């Protein structure tokens, strides 16, 4: 098997040339669309700051940078050329960044690496600009696509996926402090699963109308998206357990290890745990007690089992695809790299 361009996800040695090439193409397209929209250069500059396209050094460890290759990879795996999915990739990236910004307004903090002001009004305005940048890209895709009817179908499915993602966000906002393990999975499937499913299926749909094949790419992206959510939870847990930062009350109580532990404990054990959580919001002194209780509940095994589930489901989704090529190998490698952690 020829080595794919990707090595392990998060591996500092991963080549960035694919991302750089894509960003260069997207920058040309997006700058042209902004100029054609006749918006001021000042506003264009604000939008440009929020996108990672024009940075002098591309940080390949940024998740949005890496995953933007998915539409092109799926297009290539389905028998096409990566660049045929550029408009889809660009729209998906713009939506991704916009959603990220809106999440930041909800969480009241600016994520690392986003060059935008902390003013919520400004952030929402930038997010809106990026949403419509995405729409400009999709409009341009349709105008250039050889099959208008099928092109419209691709866009319709794209929008449906995003609407479901919005529904996930609605459930997340509404759940507040009354989250449950069940709602965690429901929200993850809508927010992350469907978002990545949209990227993968839309990319493949640029060159394929085979519904069976497209379903495979959908399932691959869906399970990859949920897996990504679980891994994000692990990173957040590390920050909680190993740093002096006080976790924000709502996000901490909605984290996967905490929700799992609250679900499985009963009676006095449950009451004790909830008391510890309540105390933790006031001070960090009982952090070790919470970590111990979470460990004793079997959270590590539960999360490893779920990582196993979504990895295997993502790999299984690719099995029916007959086309064996570098892109398909890369998709497989993406998942295997996530599992290949020595414990």
């Amino acid at each position: 098997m020829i080595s794919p361009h990707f090595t392990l996800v998060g591996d500092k040695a991963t080549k960035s040339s694919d991302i750089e090439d894509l960003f260069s193409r997207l920058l040309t397209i997006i700058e042209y669309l902004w100029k054609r929209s006749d918006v001021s250069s000042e506003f264009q500059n604000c939008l440009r700051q929020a996108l990672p396209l024009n940075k002098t050094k591309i940080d390949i460890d940024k998740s949005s940078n890496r995953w933007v290759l998915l539409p092109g990879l799926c297009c290539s795996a389905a028998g096409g050329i990566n660049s045929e999915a550029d408009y889809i990739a660009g729209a998906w990236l713009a939506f991704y960044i916009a959603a990220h910004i809106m999440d930041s307004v909800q969480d009241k903090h600016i994520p690392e690496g986003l060059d935008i002001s902390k003013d919520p009004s400004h952030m929402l305005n930038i997010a809106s600009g990026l949403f419509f940048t995405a729409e400009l890209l999709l409009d341009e895709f349709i105008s250039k696509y050889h099959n208008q009817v099928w092109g419209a179908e691709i866009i319709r499915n794209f929008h449906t996926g995003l609407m479901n993602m919005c529904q996930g966000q609605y459930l997340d906002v509404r759940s507040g402090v009354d989250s449950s393990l069940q709602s965690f999975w429901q929200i993850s499937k809508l927010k992350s699963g469907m978002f990545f499913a949209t990227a993968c299926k839309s990319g493949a749909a640029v060159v394929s109308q085979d519904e069976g094949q497209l379903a495979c790419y959908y399932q691959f992206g869906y399970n990859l998206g949920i897996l990504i959510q679980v891994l994000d939870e692990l990173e957040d847990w590390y920050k909680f357990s190993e740093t002096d930062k006080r976790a924000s009350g709502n996000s901490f109580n909605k984290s996967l290890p905490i929700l799992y532990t609250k679900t499985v404990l009963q009676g006095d054990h449950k009451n004790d745990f909830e008391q510890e959580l309540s105390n933790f919001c006031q001070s960090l002194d009982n952090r070790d007690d919470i970590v111990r209780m979470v460990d004793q509940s079997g959270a590590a095994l539960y999360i490893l089992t779920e990582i196993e589930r979504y990895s295997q489901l993502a790999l299984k989704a690719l099995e029916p695809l007959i086309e064996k090529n570098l892109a398909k190998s890369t998709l497989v490698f993406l998942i295997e790299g996530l599992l290949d952690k020595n414990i």
Partner: protein
Amino acid sequence: MTLAQVVYHLSNDSDFATQMRTDPETALAEKGLTISKEEQAFLSNGLTRSTRADGSKISMNDIASLYVGWR
């Protein structure tokens, strides 16, 4: 959230854990729990990955530290 309950019992009930290795159907039935064969396979792989060579169990911090900066 049956899988979660199964994991909890596996982690806190040594008799259940032993029986799950030899007769998972009976072990689950006696607890009134049902998980699919597919979930049993995921759980089995999860158990393998969560157990060190010396038989000790890994912690949440152990797994979390592997995925720091994974993005």
